[in-house]
């Protein structure tokens, strides 16, 4: 029967049109990088977005005053080619590169930064990162609506290429902070041509409209499929840029992404699937990358809970966990056990806190708190967002507390939004949490547990801790500053409002064709340094 042949013709037709050379192979000559980017980005407005996929896109298309050094260490010049800091550390003068241009040819001036920072601090815009600029004089007051005169804020354009910034305190990490996308400039005429300064829904970020100042330009954006950026010839450092194009794929399913990489469809992935990591480690997979990441995986404790408000209970819970077993047998992807809140090695900071795995000590602490052998101890809940990795760790923790303390806990997983809502409203007892640094300095961690910080969520408010951090932020001298911070860290660990579990690593696969890519604590890989070579 002739109709039988139709399926085969169908398949034949679909297969035979088009090349069969893999994207990784063809990308080599054309210098096109294929990048697995996790999830579909929310948008491209640096003053509105909050996530990592957006971060990857924004560092390729825009640039701040400084850029992170791919090999780590102090930031490199970005739009600012040099800067001067006053002796007391509160006044910064940035000298902007006179060749800095917008992608449409307009010159980039200091006034652009003033306007852009005004935009992110405009309350009606609803940015979720305004506190990155709170270090500026008057910024918090402007953002909280106490004044609507932006000239009270400590940023001024002295002339077209000189920007003066005044801070509340000497903020030693300020230069590093300036590579974060929330401080990026935006092109005033473009933004206003498509909406007002505080219009979140303006179409200025669409391909064809989007204007920015980075090494790449937005070429096309196919929703949920692919975002393509191409080399920007007007970038001030354009002759250093070797890539011609980057294609970002929003692959949210880890297994699919893994398969795409193995089939030569991606140069770099966003993650490695949980199950594959130990196997790749064992087989010495040359494409596997496991690199320290400035992040801590911890359990947040609600210190307002009647049982958990006793420090002894919290310490008991912390001492009853075998962190080594968790990283070796559960997460199994090169993570390191964490004995401090701030990851060690961040900008030379090495906390000296310890959390022993000592079931005997843990039990005696629990007994002192009045729950000998776990009797009368209520069944607590571990809250986490639905994800295999979190579940596995929670299961291990559950078993360890059962065996070592005699207490039972219940595992409750919710999807992401519900989990966030519950954490925010304090509707939890113990919840799984993770914190990634926004810039390379211990302050980005320790600051979050100060009283009245929205990200605290533990109910723990300690005067002495607050004061130590205040002291640390008012000195410019590194070693003194770190001394204060270490004291704060010791205090934190002795109170244990959060139970550190492990330090994050970035695990992903990278094709050997990719060069100019260095391990980086904040996982920032500026496209301007990357090229493809075999």
């Amino acid at each position, binding site marked *: 029967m002739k109709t039988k042949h139709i399926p085969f013709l169908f398949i034949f037709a679909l297969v035979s049109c088009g090349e069969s050379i893999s994207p990784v192979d063809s990308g080599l000559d054309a210098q096109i990088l294929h990048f697995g980017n996790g999830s579909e980005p929310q948008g491209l407005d640096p003053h509105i977005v909050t996530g990592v996929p957006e971060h990857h896109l924004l560092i390729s298309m825009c640039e701040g005053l400084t850029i992170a050094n791919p090999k780590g260490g102090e930031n490199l010049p970005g739009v600012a080619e040099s800067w001067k800091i006053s002796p007391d550390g509160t006044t910064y003068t940035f000298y902007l590169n006179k060749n800095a241009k917008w992608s449409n040819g307009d010159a980039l001036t200091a006034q652009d930064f003033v306007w852009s920072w005004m935009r992110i601090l405009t309350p009606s815009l609803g940015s979720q990162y305004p506190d990155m600029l709170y270090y500026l004089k008057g910024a918090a007051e402007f953002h909280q609506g106490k004044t609507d005169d932006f000239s009270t804020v400590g940023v001024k354009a002295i002339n077209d290429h000189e920007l003066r910034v005044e801070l509340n305190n000497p903020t030693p990490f300020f230069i590093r902070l300036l590579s974060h996308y929330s401080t990026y400039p935006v092109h005033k005429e473009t933004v206003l041509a498509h909406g007002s300064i505080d219009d979140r829904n303006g179409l200025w970020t669409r391909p064809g409209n989007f204007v920015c100042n980075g090494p790449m330009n937005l070429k096309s954006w196919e929703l949920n499929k692919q975002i393509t950026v191409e080399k920007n010839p007007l970038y001030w450092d354009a002759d250093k840029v070797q890539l011609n194009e980057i294609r970002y794929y929003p692959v949210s399913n880890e297994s699919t992404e893994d*398969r795409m990489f193995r089939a030569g469809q991606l140069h770099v992935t966003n993650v490695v699937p949980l199950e594959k990591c130990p196997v790749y480690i064992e087989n010495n997979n040359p494409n596997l990358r496991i690199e320290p990441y400035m992040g801590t995986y911890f359990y947040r404790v609600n210190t307002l809970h009647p049982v958990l408000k006793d420090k002894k209970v919290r310490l008991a819970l912390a001492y009853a966990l075998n962190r080594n077993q968790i990283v070796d047998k559960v997460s199994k992807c090169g993570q390191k056990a964490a004995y401090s809140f701030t990851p060690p090695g961040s900008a030379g900071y090495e906390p000296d806190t310890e959390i022993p795995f000592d079931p005997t000590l843990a039990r005696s602490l629990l007994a002192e708190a009045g729950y000998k052998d776990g009797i009368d101890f209520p069944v607590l809940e571990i809250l986490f967002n639905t994800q295999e990795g979190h579940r596995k760790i929670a299961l291990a923790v559950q078993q360890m507390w059962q065996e070592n303390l005699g207490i039972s806990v219940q595992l409750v997983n919710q999807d992401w*939004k519900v*989990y966030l*809502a519950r954490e925010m409203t304090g509707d939890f007892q113990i919840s799984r949490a993770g914190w990634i640094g926004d810039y390379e300095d211990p302050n980005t961690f320790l600051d979050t547990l100060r009283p009245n910080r929205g990200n605290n969520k533990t109910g723990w408010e300690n005067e002495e801790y607050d004061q130590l951090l205040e002291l640390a932020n008012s000195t410019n001298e590194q070693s003194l500053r770190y001394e204060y911070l270490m004291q704060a860290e010791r205090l934190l660990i002795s109170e244990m409002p959060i139970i550190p579990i492990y330090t994050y690593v970035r695990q992903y696969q990278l094709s050997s064709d990719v060069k100019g890519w260095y391990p980086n604590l904040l996982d920032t890989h500026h496209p301007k340094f990357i090229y493809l070579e075999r």
Partner: protein
Amino acid sequence: MLQVILKRIAIAIPVILIVASLTFFLVRMAPGGPFDAEKVVPPQVMKNLNAVYNLDAPLIIQYKDYMFNLVQGDFGPSFRYPGRSVTEMIFTGLPVTFELAFYAIIVAMIIGSLAGIIAAVKRNTLLDYIPMTIAMIGICMPTFLLGPLLVLYFGIHLEVLPVSGWGSLAGDKILPSITLGAAYAAYIARLSRGGMLETLSQDYIRTARAKGLPEYKVIINHALQGGLVPVVSFLGPAVAGLIGGSFVVETIFQIPGLGRFYVEAAFNRDYTMILGTTIFFSTLIIFFNLLSDIAVLLMNPRARSEA
């Protein structure tokens, strides 16, 4: 028949409105809002965000506004993707899902009907048992099992087909279409076999055979129509199932279709996107049910009088 169609359409409209209202209130009851993020949103920022999206008005007012816009065809802005409207997103994802479903149905109908008809004609022989067993496997195997298996074999082991994408690489539409169509091919095989068997046992078939007509003519001229009727009437529910199946296939194969948008919107609490997609899918299903009912009526005069 026109009357039947008009009546059905007249009922469909209030149904869609009820669906919209139901979904509206259901979604709002959910804990967790569209703007919750890991880094806590300062209260005044939250206030501003809620004001921009009209989330601080009383629920009834929001409902009224939404319905009013809906009737004019405006689904509102996406909460999660600033600057994008729901309509835009639906019409970006829809063609892709349509194309996927279309290929899947073609695969299912061709393979399924052929298998079913052959099985019916060669009843109780090997040509009956083998296709029907394969069909059974198709029904019993979850899509999320079949998909990865196919990818593993054809994409990674044999390296002849791409493992993901839609329209980016040659041949990347094959595996998803087959994966999605497989379960339906199986159902259609069984349905057409059943319909075929029933038709073959009718009197007029016996008459045709008695008259000396060659067997293949008997099948093509008389039996085929009867064998295909159940398949056509299955199309309506099939579309409904395909929408669900597309979620899985689109996730496994990274296809930018409406199904994937929907699942993400649900998890992200993108209220307007959830509503828009639900309403859209409902309308689609109602439409396809109507189409398939009409097709059945056209093909089977007896059913017409029963209508």
